[in-house]
């Protein structure tokens, strides 16, 4: 491992963006802003190649081990970590992260009352065991795949994937088993049987002339965190991948085809099927009509061999994809674990070791690579136990630290504090429903509940998720709000109807229960932001109450303001 000690300028005076992976400082020359900069924390970055990862201990992580590793580095960099979260802060964060929705007020009250010393660990275990965990993370991975499908019509099968993936998480299938199932999937996904064969969605959601190269690129990106697709057309200028390596990787998918299933002249589904021959061709750089047939070969240079005496070209589609799955989930291949750990850590912490979350590789700079390497090694050692990984991260103090004022966002917090990030569309919708109650239209023509990314496009839920959805592999500072989002939350008649203090709505219940404004405000904050208001917030709200004669109307304004606030949409 090459450890680069670089200077992390604060850069505020210049508004200079020192990207996470300072190219200039990695080369050794200090940024020019240096002279003006204030204290300079040491940015502990480094690159990792395959053999580096394999040097780390694969034993299970000891309690506190992640924290010791992170804090050792922070100490060297002269950074004090942020304080630990309060119980309120912790509970909202861990609920949003593990089950995709904030805690109910009763959960919060109960948790605050609980005096047992290991109550945080207990809540983590309870959430990991819940079906909501499985559903939430299935939707997450659905979005990882569906955000970049190039066959738009195949997205209808996203709901097949949702169901299948939920079952995998419920049973705590290992990441290796899940990966193997996705890469070796065959058979039919039919419109009318969303419970069947959802594992075919990953490969089946690509079609057409580029399906082979797309499958290769996405397999590498999602399961290895390696973006080899840039080498599709030319040797990568700033990475190690050669053009033929990309096309050798693509050759694993050379004999896989997708086709629509017709019944009575109508398309009723889609099937993945093998063809007995044919090779993927690397197009000639000068004449795209010509091409070189490619044989499968993994990124480590090893080629699969056919069992028995058959020569290599005779490998069938199924054999090829099994060989690829074997090579990917092999314990000799550390990138598989590193990519998953980097992704999950990034989602839980709000920042990842490698950024973007799916861009690893031997020439990419990672922050604190030794921490990632140890966690990834233990993940390999656990045979890719998904819940085990969530458990060990969520129980660490590093995860349980507060957010901290000051520079954040594009500048890395070095895991000394929590980075607040936007909630995903599914979690935000849940937050809205938890606060306001059922938002689906009653009766009538429209389906009550939607599904998938195009879920009930006519329901508010479908519109909302479409409006607020984003690709979970994007960097957090690339995810922006839109004017339509703001308009929806500000002015949607459905939402505003539910904000009213009229019969049956949340506000009516709160105002009827609590005659005292203080108590009503506390209940409202607990319901919307899962916390009690600060004194300053109480004062501001009470000023508002005094200024607006009608109590219900004033509370409606407060509920509107809380739902439209940044914090409501943020995991903090």
């Amino acid at each position: 491992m090459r450890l680069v000690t670089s200077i992390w300028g604060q850069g505020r005076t210049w508004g200079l963006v020192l990207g996470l992976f300072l190219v200039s400082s990695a080369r050794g020359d200090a940024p020019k802003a240096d002279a003006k900069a204030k204290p300079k924390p040491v940015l502990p970055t480094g690159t990792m190649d395959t053999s580096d990862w394999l040097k780390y201990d694969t034993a299970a992580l000891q309690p506190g081990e992640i924290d010791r590793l992170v804090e050792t580095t922070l100490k060297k960099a002269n950074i004090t970590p942020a304080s630990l979260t309060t119980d309120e802060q912790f509970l909202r964060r861990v609920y949003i992260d593990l089950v995709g929705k904030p805690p109910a007020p009763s959960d919060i009250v109960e948790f605050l009352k609980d005096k047992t010393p290991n109550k945080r660990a207990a809540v983590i275990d309870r959430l990991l065991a819940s079906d909501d965990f499985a559903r939430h993370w299935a939707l997450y991975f659905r979005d990882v795949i569906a955000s970049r499908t190039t066959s738009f019509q195949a997205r209808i099968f996203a709901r097949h994937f949702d169901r299948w993936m939920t079952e995998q998480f419920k049973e705590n299938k290992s990441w290796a088993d899940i990966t193997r199932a996705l890469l070796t999937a065959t058979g039919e996904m039919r419109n009318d049987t969303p419970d069947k064969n959802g594992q075919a969605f990953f490969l089946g959601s690509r079609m057409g002339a580029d399906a082979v190269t797309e499958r290769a690129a996405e397999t590498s990106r999602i399961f290895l965190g390696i973006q080899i697709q840039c080498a599709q057309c030319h040797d990568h200028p700033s990475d190690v991948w050669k053009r033929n390596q990309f096309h050798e990787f693509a050759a694993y998918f050379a004999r896989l085809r997708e086709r629509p299933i017709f019944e009575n002249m109508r398309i009723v589904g889609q099937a993945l099927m093998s063809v007995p021959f044919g090779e993927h061709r690397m197009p000639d750089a000068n004449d795209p009509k010509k091409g070189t047939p490619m044989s499968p070969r993994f990124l480590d240079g090893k080629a699969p061999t056919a069992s028995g005496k058959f020569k290599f070209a005779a490998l069938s589609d199924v054999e090829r994809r099994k060989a690829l799955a074997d090579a990917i989930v092999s314990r000799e291949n550390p990138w598989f674990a590193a990519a998953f750990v980097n992704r999950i850590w990034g989602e839980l912490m709000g920042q990842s070791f490698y950024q973007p979350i799916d861009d690893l590789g031997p020439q990419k700079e990672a922050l604190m690579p030794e921490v990632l390497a140890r966690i990834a090694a233990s993940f390999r050692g656990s045979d890719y136990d998904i819940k085990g990984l969530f458990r060990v991260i969520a129980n660490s103090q590093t995860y349980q630290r507060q957010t901290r004022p000051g520079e954040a966002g594009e500048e890395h917090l070095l895991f000394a504090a929590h980075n607040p990030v936007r909630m995903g569309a599914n979690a935000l919708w849940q937050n809205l429903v938890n606060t306001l109650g059922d938002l689906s239209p009653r009766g009538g023509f429209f389906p009550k509940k939607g599904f998938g990314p195009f879920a009930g496009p006519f329901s508010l839920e479908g519109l909302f998720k479409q409006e607020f959805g984003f690709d979970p592999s994007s960097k957090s500072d690339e995810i922006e709000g839109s004017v339509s989002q703001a308009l929806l939350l500000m002015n949607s008649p459905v939402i505003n109807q539910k904000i009213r203090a009229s019969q049956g709505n949340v506000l009516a219940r709160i105002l009827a229960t609590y005659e005292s404004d203080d108590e009503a405000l506390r209940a409202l904050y607990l319901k919307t932001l899962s916390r009690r208001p600060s004194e300053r917030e109480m004062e501001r709200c009470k000023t508002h109450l005094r200024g607006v004669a009608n109590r219900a109307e004033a509370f409606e304004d407060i509920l509107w303001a809380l739902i439209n606030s940044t914090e409501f949409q943020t995991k903090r």
Partner: protein
Amino acid sequence: MSMQSLMHVQTNGAGVVSRRHFLRSVAAGAAGAGLLGWKEALAAQAPELRREGKACILLFMRGGPSQFETFDPKPGHANGGPTQAIDTAVEGIRLAEGWTNVAREMRSIALIRSLTNREGEHQRATYQMHTGYVPLAAVRYPSIGSIVASEIAPRDFDLPHFVSVGNRFSTIGSGFLGMQFAPFVVGNPNQMPANVELPGGTNQGRFDRRLNLMTDLERDFAEAGGQQLVQSHQALYSSAANMVRSPRIRAFDLSQEAAAVRDRYGRNAFGSGCLLARRLVEAGVTFVEVELNGWDTHQDNFNRSKSLSETADAGFAALVRDLRERGRLDRTLVIWMGEFGRTPRINGNTGRDHYPRAFSVALAGCGIRGGQVIGSTSAGGNDITNRPVGVADLFCTFCHALGINPRKENVSPIGRPVPIVDGGQHVRELFA
């Protein structure tokens, strides 16, 4: 916004600037920060273009219109089917029957009959005809509307730069250019857009009161580490609130138009969309897309194309005529196109299938010399016989008309440089 604050935007080694950081540094230096995007600042090298007030309207014929039944009729040939041709205001240029209004405007309109492409699947071709690129998982390419908005949209403007009319669910968005240039989608042009009007029980005073309350209640969270999120959020809310309060929002209100005008555009969603496009461009919107769906005529091609042509003809012709008469055509590029053409062979269901090899596009305004035809197809329409134009050439042509440098490279989030158009040359004859 001052140039001073622009100077402070710098890129890191890979040429990537953080969007949120930019937003914040702008927020510190200028009022109305929400109206400014990082890409916009990087594109600030062409301020004169913004002053010119150029705009573009794309009439997208979803499904793939038959060139035989629109702008490249082949009467007398077996492939031409029963469709007859009609004369136009320009001698020698003939269109398919049904296009009488467009025929009258022919002096303002140029045709390309030799567009050629390979992509024959709807979604992929639609994507390509919107972005100039075939879909790729690694890069979310921006739609031409977002590109044009990011390059030439005016800075201080309280409506969206890019409005897409009539397609709620599969609009191609701003890709890596970010939400700043994402299309604002209007499902039904005959109504005001969703959520731009205050809900019942909320007047302007109460709306402002709520916004103030929200801003004040954000302070604790901002001070606890959410400062940047709060800043971007408030910039966004101020854009949205400005839009709600803007007098220009009435540009969306077609009821302000005379009945005769509305009749001329056609009393249907597409006609209304064309009228809305004219109103929005006049109000200062940079790019408007209006969709007419239904051109996928595998069955009953001739009757269906005829009815679609009537709708398209009225809206397209009224738009070109109005823009010309109101002095806006020289600064507004109007594009009529679909994702591909249809097969010369008429299938067993009197339909035509997908045919990307040779199809037609119509262009008007913004320096395009009307009354001419670029390229030609063979007698049966199977092949291009003269002047093939590829998708990249077409996109370079859009850029040329709008004063955009097609070789300019944007940077995707993983640091890949992406030219606005990859290769191609603009069709010079169109501007001669």
